[in-house]
């Protein structure tokens, strides 16, 4: 999911354990797999794979030093975003994988995630702001495409 500015340092065992708990809280009754095999690697990415329908935990699940909404989003909000990818995939939404249209899908996913019941109001705001930033980026990218 991640744009620039989030954590890149490999997660510790304790951090991975926390993420597993957060994932369990988000999923509630419906158990979903989250794969942690890459999380202890530097610069690993948190992502949803349509191929195996699983979420992969990465170093960038943690916020970083960036100032944008995406960079400061909490672990819970980041995982809610990935859960939203999984739920949208099950609903039959086909993701666009190319720029700039994947930005719209990411924006929709952040909006979807922002409604999750366990999120704090700050997490909701960050996800909504993230959606706005991605749509702004889509306009910029689309304009660039037309001009070139």
């Amino acid at each position, binding site marked *: 999911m991640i744009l620039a500015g989030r954590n890149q340092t490999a997660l510790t065992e304790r951090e991975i354990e*926390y993420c597993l*708990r957060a994932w369990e*809280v988000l999923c509630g*009754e419906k158990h979903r797999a989250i794969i942690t095999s890459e999380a202890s690697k530097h610069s690993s990415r948190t992502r949803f794979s349509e191929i195996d329908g699983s979420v992969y935990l990465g170093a960038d699940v943690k916020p970083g030093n960036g100032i944008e909404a995406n960079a400061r989003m909490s672990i819970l*909000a980041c995982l809610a975003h990935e859960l939203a990818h999984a739920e949208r995939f099950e609903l039959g939404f086909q993701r666009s994988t190319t720029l700039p249209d994947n930005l719209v899908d990411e924006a929709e996913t952040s909006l979807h995630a922002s*409604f*999750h019941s*366990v999120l*704090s*109001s700050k997490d909701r705001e960050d996800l909504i702001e993230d959606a706005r930033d991605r749509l702004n980026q889509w306009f910029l990218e689309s304009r660039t495409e037309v001009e070139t």
Partner: protein
Amino acid sequence: MNVEPTGIVLVDVCTIQTEKCVARQPAPITVVWTLPGRVQVNVCRPCLEQQVRLGEWEIRGAKIERRADVAVYSPDNRLQLVVEVKKRPRTQTDLKEWASRVRRNLIAHSGIPSTAYFLLAVFPDTLFLWKNSDPFDIEKAPDYEAGVPDGLKAYFNELPSSPDSASGYHLEMVTTSWLRDLAKSARSNDPSLQWVYDSGLYDAIKNGSVVMQAAIAA
């Protein structure tokens, strides 16, 4: 009551422990504040959402899982009726007011889809029916309040315990069975079903299909 999720994750026992609870033993849960007063409540996600479904809690900006305890489709496969099955609350004095709050909460948090009819079955004794129309009135009082029809009472014998103490699952089962019978039946003179005919519900679901614990896509 409004509650405010904190986003905190910890391992503890869920304070609420509804039928859906996944943290009766220490398990990952979250923390919410009740407002006003800011009392901390440790709660698992299923219980958090169940409190919303029960009309007890509201969470600003949140949606809950969209599902129907029982869903009834017309023969052309259009969702006509969503049923929420509940037990009579122990502390509630005004049942009709409580029923309206349950429906309001379900709609406000997207817990049920917009359908022509919404039935709140409050066991052991009362059914509330809303006939929805545009524009959708979220605060609307029920259009019909009725006792449990004889056809539904007949299924109480199949419950492993009295309707007061039966599980939500068993109450959903008997409601499903009754609605299946109703959808297949011919119009009768049964006075306990008059509200079903007057409201148009019978015509809407006649020869339709009945599904228990239906997940309904947004």
